[in-house]
């Protein structure tokens, strides 16, 4: 057989590799890596700055319905008002569940989960890398920055345990995938936070730039943790040290503000070194808006949607000449055009109060009940026409009405047939002194520009000391520490107190849109349940940790006696559980177990190696384990 053998060989001899393994090592030329960044004091502080910037997002972030608004909307002082969002925080039974917890304009509970863990990550990176930076730092500087790391980690953990209850404890830097987290007992976490903050209070410096935590910022968080742990005497001692070093502002500091409260909340005074009251600020300034801008959006979130043409109409009136009724025309307009002769005049509502969309709608408790005869002169309250605005202060300024409708240029009149939805979103009064932030970069649609904002200030410390005395049963001293805050604001001093009510009332008056109201109410609820102190606001009721979240999952219980948070919100808020319906988007309802928020379902299922407990009261098929205590080995170790 002929053997045709055609061989075609195409061969390329391979380059026998004499290259070392290093030849293929990735070598980035120009970006940061942990190994070249976190090696000295500047590098470590850059991670602290990341914590601080993350904290600013709590108050200013996400434009519509910032996270701070969610704290107010799930409390006694406000409700969710953005009536064009389906599934917003109205029917909490239906719209806050493990499979539906969100971080968007309908609600920001998920923000607190996600960003809480981000902040803890940044703080743990600082604490982990100190040993490298220690080589170039003095011992005092090292301890101070360690204290800063403890502060930021404790700030997030303190919020998480008052929002989600028992959560995983993480105190090291994650450097490779970890999916075996376990739930830890919040009381054990509180014990650890107390130790960390005792250290921070001792070592963080007294004087730091505004925007950074100082000794006194650490002190007030330390106080909250001590109070959560029932150590009221220690908290009082720390509080008195803070007050001694940081007196409240009692006289105006800047020029051009009509009263002390407008002055205290102005950008000028927040920048001024004569302001001894601010203990911790987040900072954002218009002069830096090219490189680091975060606008406050306080007017957009917190003032009514007065520009909604279909809601705010002129009254119908009878035309004298013909006897016929003139059809009601649209009322206000948010931004008069640039050619409009009335722009920036007294008629221009946007110019004077900003343009709101009513996301965060104050309750009647905050608008009316808090301001009694004793608060007639209170500069924080509705009786002060410089500090507060009501709808009747605004004008009909729709250019289409000019010359055609007698209401043009007149003050607003509440429409007779205003719908429930519109009255929630478009008609309420608000603390203009707190929410007004000028924005020099825009000429219309003023939403609230850049501004420093108080995270902690001395007035809160007074009220915390007053609360400590309450827990100790010393009503005389509770009174003694509430009154300075009242007197400073122009209110009459109280002559007696009954108990927690006066503390909560005064906090609401003073700290609207500053304190994390939901978390503070939950802290107090846990303290009642832990100490068993009789709550005089509810006839001497005693609370029990075992019943805190109700009886069983999925009950949607609406009954008093389980936790103070629900009892107080249900009694005082006035809109939850009263049959108020926000259009087609749900009836305002809240149940006992909503004191705490659900752990996102995805967090539990993605954690394939360990067990994270779902918050009690929420339906779940995942199992729950007994929470670990810090120091115990987790089952995966």
């Amino acid at each position, binding site marked *: 057989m002929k053997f045709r*053998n055609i*061989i*075609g060989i195409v*061969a*390329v*001899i*391979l380059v026998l*590799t004499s290259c070392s393994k290093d030849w*293929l090592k*990735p070598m980035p030329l120009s*970006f*940061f890596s*942990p190994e070249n960044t976190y090696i000295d004091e500047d590098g470590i502080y*850059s*991670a602290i*700055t*990341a914590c*601080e*910037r993350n904290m*600013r997002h709590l108050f200013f972030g996400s434009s519509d319905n910032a996270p701070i608004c969610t704290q107010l909307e799930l409390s006694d002082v406000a409700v969710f008002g953005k009536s*064009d*969002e*389906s599934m917003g925080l109205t029917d909490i*039974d*239906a719209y806050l*569940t*493990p*499979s539906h917890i969100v971080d968007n304009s309908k609600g920001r509970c998920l923000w607190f989960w996600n960003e809480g*863990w981000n902040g803890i*990550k940044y703080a743990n990176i600082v604490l982990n890398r100190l040993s490298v930076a220690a080589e170039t730092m003095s011992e005092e500087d090292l301890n101070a920055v360690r204290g800063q790391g403890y502060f930021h980690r404790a700030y997030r953990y303190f919020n998480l345990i008052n929002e989600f209850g028992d959560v*995983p404890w993480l105190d090291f830097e*994650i450097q*490779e*995938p*970890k*999916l075996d*987290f376990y739930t830890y007992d919040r009381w054990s976490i509180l014990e650890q936070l107390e130790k960390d903050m005792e250290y921070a209070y001792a070592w963080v410096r007294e*004087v730091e*730039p505004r*925007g950074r935590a100082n000794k006194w910022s650490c002190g007030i968080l330390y106080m909250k943790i001590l109070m959560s742990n029932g150590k009221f005497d220690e908290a009082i001692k720390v509080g008195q040290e803070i007050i001694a070093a940081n007196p409240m502002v009692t006289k105006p500091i800047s020029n051009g503000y009509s009263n002390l409260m407008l002055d205290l909340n102005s950008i000028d005074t927040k*920048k*001024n*070194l004569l302001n001894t009251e601010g203990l911790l600020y987040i900072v954002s*300034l218009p*002069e*830096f808006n090219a*490189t*680091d801008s975060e606008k406050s959006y306080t007017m957009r979130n917190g003032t009514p949607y007065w520009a909604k043409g*279909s809601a705010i109409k002129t009254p119908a009136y009878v035309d004298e000449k013909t006897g016929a009724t003139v059809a009601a025309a649209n009322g206000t307009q948010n931004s008069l055009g640039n050619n409009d002769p009335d722009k920036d005049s007294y008629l221009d509502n946007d110019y004077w109060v900003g343009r709101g969309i009513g996301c965060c709608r104050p309750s009647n408790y905050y608008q009316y009940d808090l301001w009694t005869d004793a608060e007639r002169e209170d500069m924080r309250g509705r009786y002060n026409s410089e500090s507060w605005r009501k709808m009747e202060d605004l004008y009909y300024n729709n250019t289409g009405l000019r010359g055609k409708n007698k209401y043009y240029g007149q003050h607003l009149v509440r429409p007779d047939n205003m719908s429930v939805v519109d009255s929630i979103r478009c008609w309420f009064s608000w603390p203009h002194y707190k929410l007004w932030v000028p924005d020099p970069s825009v000429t219309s649609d003023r939403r609230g520009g850049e501004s420093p904002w108080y995270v902690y200030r001395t007035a809160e410390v007074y009220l915390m000391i007053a609360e400590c005395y309450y827990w100790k049963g010393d009503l005389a001293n509770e009174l003694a520490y509430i009154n300075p805050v009242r007197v400073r604001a122009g209110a009459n001093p109280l002559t007696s107190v009954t108990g927690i009510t006066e503390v909560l009332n005064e906090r609401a008056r003073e700290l609207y849109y500053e304190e994390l109201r939901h978390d503070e109410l939950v802290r107090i609820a846990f303290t009642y349940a832990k100490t068993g102190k009789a709550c005089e606001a509810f006839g001497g009721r005693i609370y029990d940790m075992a019943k805190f979240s109700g009886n069983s999952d*999925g009950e949607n219980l609406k009954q008093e006696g389980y936790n103070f948070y629900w009892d107080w919100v249900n009694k005082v808020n006035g809109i939850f559980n009263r049959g108020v319906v926000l259009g087609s*988007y*749900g009836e305002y309802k809240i149940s006992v177990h909503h004191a705490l928020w659900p752990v*996102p*379902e995805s*967090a539990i*299922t*993605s954690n*394939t*190696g360990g067990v994270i407990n779902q918050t009690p009261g929420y339906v779940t*098929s995942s199992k729950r384990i007994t929470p670990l205590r810090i120091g115990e080995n987790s089952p995966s170790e």
Partner: protein
Amino acid sequence: MARLFYQYNNRYMLTASIRRDGYSAFGIENPYGTFPSIALGWVFSHEDFLRSTSKWLNYGKLRLSYGINGNRDIGAYAALAQLNSGLYTYIGTNGTPYQVSQIYINVLGNSHLKWEQTAASNIGLDYTLFNNFVDGSIDYYHSVTTDLLVSRSLPRITGYGSISSNLGELQNNGFEILANFHTYNGQNFKWNSTVTFYLNRRKINHLYGDMEDVLDDNGNIIGQKEADDYTNQWFIGHDPDEIWDYEMDGVWQLGQEEEAAVFGNKPGDFRYVDQNGDDKLNQDDKIFTGYYTTPRYQLSWRNDFTLFKNWSIGFIMYAKIGQWGTYNRAANANGNYDRYTAYNIGRWTETNPTNDYARIGSTNFGNHYVNKSFLRMENFNVSYTIPKTLLKRIKVDNARISLAIRNPFVLTKWEFGDVEGGDYTLRSVNLGINVTL
């Protein structure tokens, strides 16, 4: 790289190659991968023992191949931790504002990253039959990809959402048929036709190797199994394109107010099945719906006709069958309907109790899926070559008039926008004259 090719007697063929590649993105631990392959071919139609079939079997070749290929489709620095930076403002202790840098880690590094490898085997048949009436090929392949380069999701507690990682094992099986028909070849009529058919099935065999406990009804541990990735919706034993979600069940209608209220819904909202009857809609109610996001079958058909030597007509059609897509616009829940215009699509109203669309402002807890299978004629063209006898008089060498239509029609149930993506389908008609002087 080295390659060898050997052929014997015009009938037996062998090709073999091997290569070794390195990529710096994997450079920390596993920079290199080795990729061999081998292929055999046998033209069996030339064999002596098949001489009797040569009347109808003009050409037949059997092909077998096996090879390993690498994929390195990942950023050059994906193995390194990456930091983000920005500025933050302070007010200094002297009262002057200033800015400093913030730097934070936003991507977790993975020094164990390595080459993704696919081992593929293929068996194929090339054929020509019935005196060149039809020729084509049939192929079946089976490939297993290991160490897929993916973005593995992490619990948010870590502070990270994901990490670049190599994932376990994914298998692809598929089947392709190609047939060219030289159907008729006459004086005045020629007709050629080509048909293709393609199907592919994928299955995840392994993920990350995390083992989790298997519990019986009482909560006792009875074994271990590999954990799925719920966040990315990758499940062991299933196609990654398989849709795992709530089961759609039309729309809540009037008269069902009480039932609907249990879930926080009202008549007019999309309804989903509560599989375990616990009055809550959560992960336990998600099932493998039997829908896929990618086509189950793909076909194409091309025809070219030549009539009377001067006319030619042709068209191409193709079909993709079995894919579904989300269409949540049908929930009419994007907000602000009182303030701006929106597309006029269907909606549920009390007088129009449809099951395909929800009421305006509905509460929608799940996803609404619609079948996106389609048949599309992609191209239709007609051209006429003017006979040379007519052209001679005007001294023109060649002239041809042609008409081409792209996207003449699509048959599909998908009602909104182009079924292959995009908001609209572009159909174009071109009329042309081609002249050579």
